[in-house]
């Protein structure tokens, strides 16, 4: 009979460490702008002068520790060559974050980046966090895209923007960190990613696709 219980049911948080939120991040952009190099720098801290062109979609994971949460990125580094363009939706559908990369010494690559932004805005998940990376910032001597111009474009489109260099590591961790901070960390989103790593992006597209369709019709 006489029995009392302390407090309402809750799950004890016996450590101060937060929970892990898992997110899919896709890198897009013209061939040779440095997508793979950025990932290699971020994940392994390396840079290769002769980085092979990606034929497929490379997969790596990397964790970023924030104040209260731990963000685990499942990174899909896609092939930039134009002939593989039609395969890109397999990777960006269902992704919660994207880095669109261009080469600051190559105006065309900036134009291509804008096309990617448009495609994502139309086809990807509506709450996808998009970052624009102006890579090869170490080659500022041969700059073809002004920083201000890219910044203005990013502002207009609500993108994160940084000029990066996979070679010198400038802003590489920073851009991933900025994305990690911007991503929503409620249960739902993190729950979606907490199953097996490396599974195909397409399979989790369900909701995103439906949401994308209803605004176009």
């Amino acid at each position, binding site marked *: *009979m*006489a*029995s*009392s*219980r*302390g*407090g*309402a*049911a*809750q*799950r*004890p*948080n*016996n*450590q*101060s*460490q937060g*929970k*892990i939120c898992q997110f899919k991040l896709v890198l897009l952009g013209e061939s040779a702008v440095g997508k793979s190099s950025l990932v290699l720098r971020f*994940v*392994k801290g390396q840079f290769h002068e002769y980085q092979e062109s990606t*034929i*497929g*979609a*490379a*997969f*790596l*994971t*990397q*964790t970023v*520790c924030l104040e209260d949460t*731990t963000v*685990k990125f499942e990174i899909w580094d896609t*092939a930039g060559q134009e*002939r*593989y363009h*039609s*395969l890109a*939706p*397999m990777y960006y*559908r269902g992704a919660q974050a994207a880095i669109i990369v261009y080469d600051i010494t190559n105006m065309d690559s900036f134009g291509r980046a804008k096309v990617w932004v448009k495609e994502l805005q139309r086809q990807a998940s509506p709450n996808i966090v998009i970052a624009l990376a102006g890579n090869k910032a170490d080659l500022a001597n041969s700059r073809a895209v002004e920083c201000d111009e890219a910044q203005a474009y990013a502002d207009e489109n609500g993108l994160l923007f940084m000029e990066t260099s996979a070679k010198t590591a400038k802003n590489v961790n920073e851009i991933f960190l900025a994305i990690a901070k911007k991503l929503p960390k409620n249960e739902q989103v993190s*729950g979606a990613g*907490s*199953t*097996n*790593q*490396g*599974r*195909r992006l*397409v399979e989790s597209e369900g909701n995103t696709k439906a949401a994308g369709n209803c605004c176009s019709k």
Partner: protein
Amino acid sequence: MSSNQDLIGIIQAKLSSGETASSCHEASLMQGWVRASRILALVEHENEWALFIFISSRMPPEVFTDLAIERVIPVDSDFKCEIDAGEQSGDVYVNISSRKLKLLFEMIPGIKTNNFVSEIMRSMEALMKLRGPPPEFQWLHKYSGSTSNRNSADCDPAPVDAADVDVTKGAKTVAEKMLDIDSPDIVVPRQSIAQGATPIAARESVIRYQMSMKEDDYTFTETLRVFIGTWNVNGLPPNASLSPWLASDMEPPDLYAVGFQELDLSKEAFLFNDTPREEEWRKAVIAGLHPAAKYRQVALVRLVGMMLILLVQEKHEKHVRNVAWETVGTGIMGKMGNKGGVGIRVEIHNTSICFVNSHLAAHVEEFERRNQDYHDICSRLSFSKFVPTKCIKDHDQVYWLGDLNYRITEMEPRIVRDLISHNSLSALLECDQLNRQRQHKNVFDGYREGPITFKPTYKYDPGTDDWDSSEKNRAPAWCDRILWRGDGMEQKEYRSHPILRTSDHKPVSALFESQIRVIDVVKYRKVHEEVMKKLDKLENEFLPQVTVDNTEIIFDIVRFLEPQSQELIIANTGQVPVDFEFIKKLDDSKYCKEWLNIDPAASSIKPGEKCDVKLELFVDKKSASKLNSGEDKLYDILVLHLDGGKDIFITVTGNYERSCFGSSLEALVHISVPVREIPIGKLVELENVREAPGGMEPYPIPKEIWFLVDHLYRHGLKKQNLFLLTGLHSELIAIRNWLDNGSSEPLPGSLYSIAEALLLLLESTAEPIVPFNLHSVCLGAATNYLQCKQIIMQLPEFRRNVFLYLCFFLQELLSHANENGLDAKTLATVFGAIFLRDPPRVSARGRVNPAVMDRKKASFVYHFLVNDLSDYVMSKSLHLSGTS
């Protein structure tokens, strides 16, 4: 189920007599940075239980010699089993710990795991229910070396000495692979992985486990002064300041846990658990606290007359988390709250502490009931707001206080009082029931108590320091006690406070200096980040990796009906087995185009091994028309997906040489030269626009059909089984070349091959002679010749021509039925399937019975084989006897 029975049998064979394996399970043990297969078994011996951990040289083990005992953990009061249920992820994590030993097992979720874990829980409950001295686990001594020694708190149980037990060779290599968690670099456990161990993934439980193993790296200890007080107040209200009891030390304690018993002896308190005394005594406590510090009340819990109040200095308040309280009644009927216990648990920084205030059964002779009350409180006091619930023993530090009611027996009250007055406490303490019961390990096993230097605290005449003068003349006793269990706890004071005379008991207090583990946030972050980094590195290192010898598969010239193949070599260059699979692109229905065949399209490759994948390109009647019209090209990008890893794109290209096979009738009637002599652009244009190049008068039927039929007409009317026997592939190729390239030679090939070529030509078109849109109309009209006739008359000109031309020819064949043995029904069946080829959708839907459809098609064509066709308007050139 049966396999589990087999496993139990194998384990049983490994055990000695009298030991019974009651339950077993396969699990993965997290060893540092890899996980390795283990077999767990719960073994019983005369009501004592132990968890056996086996390494097996193969999985599953087949004979008992496959097994080697890695560890034996007795299910004793130190044994803990916790399930990590906090994640949605697939696997179940089970923490098994005993003293300093912590093991994390991953189990596959499901009924088997549930059953096994509940068996463990049941064995723990059995232990709780056990009365009398705690189990000794004598029977485990022979496994020493593998036993987690319960008496040496600081000694981490060592893995089995290989010499002790018959470790089989295979098992030994696995055991040797045990990785040191703190090894600076990741040892590549190639071999253990090949043997089924896999790298652990960055799951929350794994990280928690890793962090708990490294606790020393990011925590430091802080000393907390803990004041514990207990007083049986005999139902009386406070009538004097409590500071002589609560504030008797120079320095203010950091934490107070103050317990009362018999707060209120009224019926109301007993029946309704309601009493004004709670607030009165609470206020008295607060008023009596040490004046040199400010305190905050953390929790207060009361059950009838038992009350426990917990206070901390204000400065510590923010470090106190996960506060919970519970009560257990063990009084009347074993449930009522006149006796029992109340508990409060908290976490201060990184240390969990439980405080229990209990009032155990009264009466001198009832010490066994007191023991029982203690055990009941232990088993029933659980803080259920936690998942899984936490019991008293699940805390780093426990303080147990209260009126435990143990008396001094086998001694006359007179002698007792006499000894006390001579200050000969030691003789009395030997007769103290609690001391005796503890010596026999019947109660408070694992707890410690400081030396008693104060007089018994019971029973006095209230308001005095005089022993009970009532006629009961009770012998004095140390009813009021304070015990503790846990590491880093040091008792500084243990005393009574006779100056407080309100009750027939004197209050008791103890002061502790207890080590609390505090997390250094900066160091914690660093260690956490290092753990994450290591897990990332591991995860990336153990991702499936392959190389392919070629990502551009180029087929040179590809011709109709001539298969070509190339090999793709996939080599596993990573450290884990790879499951690969060619996967569909977003909107495609298959992982490759219909003209390509991949064998195997999915398979597994072991590290260091290769897999040859055969890519066969074959343009047949299904794919030819799309390649001819330009709707499709010999171009495909295959997506080779590695399970749990990356994708590789493989481009397949080829140069298709167009043929009359796959060309539409409409295009062919507009071509007067062999197909190969027409530029590709023209061909595509013809397929799509259907206009005569240069205004040429189109043929009534394609010349290719005419060549084939004419040949059969001249040479094959008497041939048996024409259209029923198949031709030779090589001859079909020769016929194709003859038709496509033109030749002055006679048409090559046997009559059977030529007949088959004719059928193939008709089957390779994008649409059959009766277009798909008339398909169902024809089937509906199949029994009615007139309707069939009407449909045929409405066909587009060239189609109608071809249809009738072929029917004329078939009638001609049938007129030689005596020689060739053919009959109208058979031919109608063959040509029904060709003239009325199913639209792609229909066959996919599969709603209509195909046998019924085939019969309808045959009966449609049958009309035209047995009725006179001479009234059909036919162009002259359709006469069978024409020459080229």
